[in-house]
């Protein structure tokens, strides 16, 4: 274990990672006039995938109508390109840091199977909530926080509250 750890590149100190991230946010506003996002692309992909397998049903869902514009190139979207970049950047980062590997990230006292179920459940809650809040940690907290959007700051406080409260109930999953 010790030797494996030693071969890995250390994490960046929080403040440097944060300043780097801040510069990326500035560049994003300077170039595109909008913020970064994490969940919007997945929402769009879900709508388009549903449209492929159940066209009529997808078109009957009022919420998804926003994704089915004229022209049909529905995945030709700024956030989709950006999230694709996030994946590639993460992949490049993990490989160059020696952190890439097929693993399951979990607490010490649960099985892989349990972890997968709770990951699915937590993802479901997050995906649902991100539509409710109109954005996630990237779109609301980081981007909205950076532009001092009032509702985004309220969102941020609420998200931290939700995390601390729920942690108490799921402590056996992680500790």
């Amino acid at each position: 274990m010790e030797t494996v750890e030693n071969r890995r590149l250390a994490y960046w100190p929080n403040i440097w990672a944060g300043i780097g991230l801040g510069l990326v946010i500035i560049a994003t506003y300077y170039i595109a006039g909008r913020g970064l996002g994490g969940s919007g692309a997945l929402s769009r992909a879900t709508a388009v995938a549903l449209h492929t397998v159940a066209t009529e049903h997808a078109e009957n869902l009022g919420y998804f109508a926003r994704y089915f514009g004229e022209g049909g190139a529905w995945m030709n979207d700024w956030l989709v390109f950006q999230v694709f970049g996030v994946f590639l950047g993460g992949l490049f980062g993990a490989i160059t840091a020696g952190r890439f590997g097929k693993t399951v990230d979990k607490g010490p006292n649960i099985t892989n199977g349990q972890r997968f179920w709770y990951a699915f459940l937590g993802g479901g809650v997050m995906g649902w909530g991100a539509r409710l809040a109109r954005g996630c940690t990237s779109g609301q907290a980081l981007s909205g926080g950076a532009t001092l959007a009032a509702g985004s700051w309220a969102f941020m406080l609420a998200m931290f509250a939700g995390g601390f409260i729920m942690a108490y109930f799921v402590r056996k999953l992680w500790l």
Partner: protein
Amino acid sequence: MDIAPLAKMGLISADVNMILAGVLGFAFGLILERAGFGSAHRLVMQWFGRDWSVFRVMFSAIVTAVFGILTLDAFDLMSLDAVYINKTYWNSQIAGGLVMGAGFAIGGYCPGTSFVGLASGKIDALFYIIGMSFGVLVFAEVWPLIEGFMSLGSAGRLTLAGLFGVNVWIVAFVVLLIAIVGFWGANTLEQKINAKT
């Protein structure tokens, strides 16, 4: 003269804007990985108070970006009026935030970091992403029940400066102050909590 946002001032084409979206995303993903945010266990320790990296990275990013964006605007290098600022809907943003914090603690990631987790080879991140997609689908299915709630507490394009009726630079320095006090508080709490366990 305001030449930015470049895409909105017509200085770059839509295609170039798309390519740059990928480049910016790449930098975003790389930094998240280097911050250690491809690991659910590390992220979740924020919610147990044992590792405040999420808070520290987030707040140093926000402080950097707030001052950077305001400076660009002040020197007329970028028009803040042309920048999209999230609209405020108090009810849905507060409710959504609470729900998402819960989802974060259960599942271990937020949407952006789950893509970095998957890219790092984490199988649990894949289940998390499938779950998110399922959550979106459920949301779309129950949309008629939620639609009314979504527009409650609507305040439009409202910034903290507008909300409190103060100059935006005052807000910026308060944010800086919150970050400094928050860093000190986070470091203190972290040491206390880790000493106990």
